[in-house]
């Protein structure tokens, strides 16, 4: 039983097939760990114990019949931003407390068909707005490597749960770095696919031109296994791309000789912690030793990405969050008329960061300011995308840090929103350009906090990124779990 946490999904499936463990035993194992450890980590908002055991019993029946499904019997946690039929979805907000979706998100439907087991819903920054999970209306998740520090955000719950072994893997979402940054700060693997690769149907929308769902796991091959299930065209999402889904595990184990990896000078910024810089230098050297060719590239408009992002995402959010008005679902506060009801409901239901972004977004779209802000930001977004197009004529994929710093202390960045926004300086451009991004553990700082390496790929090049990540992971054996939770 002690090896379970070190096993890949493929290895777990083998154990299940050979009946060395049952799915019910596996689910119980994780449920017990959640009971033992999550009181101090606070990654789960809701634990669906009976539902999980029921799904596990179904899985065991199928296994006994010799049936095979890609994730049969494997226990997952879901970021609480995905609509799950019959199970509350709060999006980390009071305004959706008690909301029970009448339908499953497409990714949930796909996971169901693949035989997964649903352990529970994971904590997040409210409406995915944040980089520390401190904006959750319900609880602040802790970083399992140091409980006085944040796990990152907005997928802090998924990252912490995976890092502490409270699920085999998880789904998170990423709009400006919300899978990659917490994955980096918690020492796990996290991937944001190409925009449109995974259906957004049933994903509670924050910024529709930027949001993507993706896996978090303790190793690269698990990310590939999950991506294989959730990727694909969906008629219910008109931004989902029609290209067929390859087998993302197909290139794992192949070498990377001759692979050109671009190193953009603009990502190695002044504010970068020395330990992060050191880990990056060592990582690039490792890639080189494995046959890759580092190439210096430039992404000249990088410094404008945060400004562009906070205009575009807040504008889109102000529109997407207009639906939370107390009429059809969620919280409703009494009002003397409809407008009074809207205002009182949104006052009570939304947290500070959400309100701040709605005001910003409404402002940048308002008459007189639309051209100066929103349209201008859209144009600079084109320049940022063109930077990547140009860079990819010189390299196959790009390697950068995920975050200039390791996990900061709880409360440290709450006073000045701008300081918090700058946490995502390395991840944001990837969303603006719609490209795939992967975060991979590459070491620790002197305080023992995880450092993540980012691989940015060309559109739809996830298989090759996973190939490179797999080579790195095999060579640079990084500790996967804090001692405290390794038992």
């Amino acid at each position, binding site marked *: 039983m002690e090896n379970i946490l070190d096993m890949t999904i493929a290895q777990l499936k083998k154990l299940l097939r050979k009946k060395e463990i049952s799915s019910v035993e596996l689910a119980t194992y994780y449920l017990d760990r959640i009971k033992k450890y999550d009181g101090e980590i606070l990654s789960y908002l809701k634990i669906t114990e009976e539902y999980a055991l029921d799904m596990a019993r179904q899985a065991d029946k199928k296994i006994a019949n010799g049936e095979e499904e890609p994730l049969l019997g494997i226990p997952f946690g879901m970021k609480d931003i995905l609509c799950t039929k019959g199970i509350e979805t709060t999006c980390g907000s009071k305004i959706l407390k008690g909301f029970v979706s009448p339908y499953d998100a497409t990714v949930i439907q796909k996971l169901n068909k693949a035989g997964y087991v649903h352990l529970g819903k994971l904590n997040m920054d409210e409406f995915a707005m944040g980089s520390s999970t401190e904006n959750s209306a319900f609880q602040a998740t802790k970083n399992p490597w140091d409980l006085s520090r944040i796990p990152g955000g907005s997928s802090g719950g998924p990252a912490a749960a995976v890092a502490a072994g409270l699920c085999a893997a998880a789904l998170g979402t990423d709009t400006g770095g919300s899978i990659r940054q917490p994955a980096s700060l918690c020492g796990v693997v996290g991937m944001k696919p190409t925009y449109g690769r995974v259906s957004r149907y049933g994903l509670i929308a924050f910024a529709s031109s930027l949001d993507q769902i993706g896996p978090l796991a303790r190793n690269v091959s698990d990310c590939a296994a999950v991506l294989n299930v959730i990727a694909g065209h969906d008629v219910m999402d008109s931004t989902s791309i029609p290209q067929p889904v390859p087998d993302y595990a197909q290139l794992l184990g192949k070498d990377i000789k001759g692979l050109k990896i671009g190193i953009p000078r603009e990502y190695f910024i002044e504010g970068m912690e020395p330990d992060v810089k050191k880990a990056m230098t060592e990582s690039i050297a490792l890639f080189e030793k494995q046959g890759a060719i580092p190439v210096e590239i430039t992404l000249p408009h990088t410094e404008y990405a*945060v400004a562009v992002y906070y*205009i575009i995402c807040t504008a889109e959010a102000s529109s997407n969050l207009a639906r939370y008005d107390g009429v*059809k679902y969620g919280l409703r506060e009494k009002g003397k008329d409809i407008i009074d009801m809207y205002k009182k409901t949104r006052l009570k239901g939304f947290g500070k960061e959400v309100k701040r972004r709605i005001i910003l977004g*409404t402002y940048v779209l308002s008459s007189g300011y639309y051209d100066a802000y929103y349209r201008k930001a859209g144009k600079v977004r084109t320049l940022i995308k063109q930077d990547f197009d140009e860079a990819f004529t010189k390299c196959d994929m790009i390697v950068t840090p995920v975050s200039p710093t390791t996990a900061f202390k709880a409360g440290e960045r709450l006073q000045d929103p701008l300081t918090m926004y700058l946490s995502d300086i390395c991840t944001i451009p990837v969303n603006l350009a*719609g490209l795939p991004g992967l975060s991979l553990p590459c070491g620790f700082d002197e305080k023992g906090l995880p450092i993540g390496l980012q691989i940015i790929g060309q559109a739809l090049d996830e298989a090759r990124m996973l190939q490179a990540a797999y080579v790195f992971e095999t060579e640079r054996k990084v500790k996967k779990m804090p001692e405290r939770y390794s038992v």
Partner: protein
Amino acid sequence: MKITKETVEYVAHLGRLELEPQEIDLYTQQIDSILQYMDSLNSLNTDGIEPTSHAIPVKCVLREDTTKASFSVDDSLKNAPEKTGSFFKVPPIIGVEE
């Protein structure tokens, strides 16, 4: 100053948000400093550049115009804070000052 308290209050009203009195000052100051940061975009020449709204574009996504079952009235009303018959019940809408 890029933004005044009055503008923040007006924009909040547009977004159907009510702010607590102590919040207005704080938000004005924070939003002001964020907007000043965004001024950096003005140093860029974007003449002739088209804005990107869809990074990985998919064109002409159409479907057959066929009717399919949607949610039942019961399912649609399940989360309703207040309902009557097959309707969501809300406070007065007509004759309300904007």
